[in-house]
């Protein structure tokens, strides 16, 4: 139906202007000196060289570390949760999924902001601790509070895909495993878990990606001085005004994320294929 092919053109133009050009702009800025305009563009690697300053490299590693911890915590907390939901009775299941999704519909800033009241020096947690006669702890504006905020915000992104993949599982596969002599633990190890790996993989992507680039959560729960790669970029653009350096960091981050997503997807695919046709 060739008549309809033309319908693509307007969006092609839109994509060109508002998606492709901005990406090119970031590249141009990343590879050029400050104060240039299109006519006097001078090419440079300085912005990238600057990134290898220990201060920035540390921020980079810290971002990766925090995002990894968040992702791992989300798997550890989210997998059992998804498993329990998938195994609860049918009427209850829909309600549980609804309960998991409701917070997602609430503005992320508000959700994150709500933790301040709990974690602060005189907040709910410390009130409970002192009520129990325990020493109080200062948790707000630490790695801990940032990780809590991230886990809290991103946990549903882990639970839902795992739940979906567990729910898709043919119950007869589990019966077949029992039938062939595998007990519950073995069945989980050999059948249920391997078949839910695609869900875990998309969960990892959906958690790691926003976690590594977030700047709202570190800003609200980490305090003004707390620096992750997202807040570093924001700083360059909003506070410092070094757009070229900011673009370089963004480019590095975008490339790392795209590569890791590609690897994860490939890894996931390999697992499925390898298991299917192992030599």
């Amino acid at each position: 139906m060739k008549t309809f092919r033309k319908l693509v053109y307007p969006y092609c133009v839109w994509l060109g202007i508002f998606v492709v050009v901005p990406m090119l702009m970031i590249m141009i800025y990343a590879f050029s000196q400050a104060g240039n305009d299109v006519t006097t563009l001078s090419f440079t690697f300085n912005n990238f060289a600057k990134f290898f300053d220990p201060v920035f490299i540390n921020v980079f590693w810290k971002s990766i570390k925090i995002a990894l911890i968040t992702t791992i915590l989300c798997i550890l907390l989210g997998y059992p949760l998804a498993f329990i939901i998938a195994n609860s009775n049918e009427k209850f299941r829909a309600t549980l999924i609804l309960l998991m999704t409701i917070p997602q519909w609430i503005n992320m800033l508000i959700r994150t902001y709500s933790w301040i009241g709990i974690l602060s020096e005189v907040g709910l947690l410390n009130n409970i601790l002192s009520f129990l006669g325990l020493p109080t702890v200062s948790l707000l504006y630490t790695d801990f509070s940032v990780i809590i905020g991230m886990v809290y915000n991103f946990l549903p992104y882990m639970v839902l895909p795992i739940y979906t993949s567990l729910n898709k599982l043919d119950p007869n596969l589990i019966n077949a495993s029992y039938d062939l002599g595998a007990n519950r633990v073995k069945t989980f190890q050999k059948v249920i878990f391997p078949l839910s790996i695609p869900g875990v993989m998309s969960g990892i992507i959906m958690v790691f990606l926003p976690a590594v680039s977030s700047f709202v959560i570190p800003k609200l729960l980490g305090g003004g001085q707390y620096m992750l790669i997202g807040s570093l970029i924001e700083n360059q653009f909003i506070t410092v005004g070094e757009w070229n350096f900011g673009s370089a960091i963004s480019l590095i981050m975008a490339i790392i994320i795209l590569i890791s997503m590609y690897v994860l997807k490939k890894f996931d695919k390999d697992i499925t294929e390898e298991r299917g046709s192992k030599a």
Partner: protein
Amino acid sequence: MRELIQFRNIVKEFDGQLVLKGINLDICENEFVTLLGPSGCGKTTLLRILGGFIEQTEGEVYFDGIEISNVPPYKREINTVFQRYALFPHMNVFDNIAFGLNIKKENKDVIKQKVTKMLKLVGLEGYENRAVTQMSGGQQQRVAIARALVNEPMVLLLDEPLGALDLKLRKEMQVELKKIQKEVGITFIYVTHDQEEALTMSDKIVVLNEGEIQQIGSATDIYNEPENEFVAKFIGESNIIDGIMLDDYRVVFFDKEFECVDYGFHDNEPVDIVIRPEDIDIVDVEKGMIKGTVKSILFKGVHYEIMVETEHEDLKVHTTDVSEVGKEVGLSFFPEDIHVMSKMAAY
């Protein structure tokens, strides 16, 4: 033959609905038993209770003399071939078949040997490394059978295993399954709604309807001596006629008295008469026991299906002789072709 499995008064309720209404059934060693019935008759439910995947509401299941209701499926010496095979999609053919042996932590060489033997049995030599998702329905079927049999179970359960295959393949697999059962010499319990499949393979057929056993018997018993109207209608085609049993060996229907081979009914008891279409011969009008007019003729390949209109009811006849619509004909049959069934439901 020793009795291996005994169902005692099995009742199963799903959401207030009785799916099984007190099943009593004994199954012997080395038997090929088929649970036959229309969908929703409870046959698969009974099989799943034996497999241990669901629990009965009431009643006991004995396996080798021991009550097994509380034994989890992974401890039962029973293996199942599932309806849609339930092969593990993340494993290749070898790993699927070796699954049970790996769980038992058998020696690698032994596993390899056993799997190879099984692949040979089901005719899939050389397919070890194939991904199960890339196999045809018939091949997946064979893998599922091999995966179950390699564990050397005492009983193999098959839940409509041929349902997803096309007709030709189904016929081939019927023969093959029977062959495999003879080779391994264990009990097969086979669930199907296909009466022809049941008649072809089974040593013993259990006809179920609405959660109750209608009849238990060999293929020939069930076909030739259906115990009630349901069985007669469900197995093969039949003419079912109201009649009255005068006394032993004498029955009246179509206002005429016929000689038959049945006995043991009350005098003048109302009965159902079954006459199979292929047992009725079309003869000249004057030679016929019943007279009628040919109403329609359908060519069915091997035979013609002719509907003959009589004074009372239309009768269906299967014959290889040619006839024509509107022709006056006589119908005749032998005393042993008249099957008399009690009007009372179920046996």
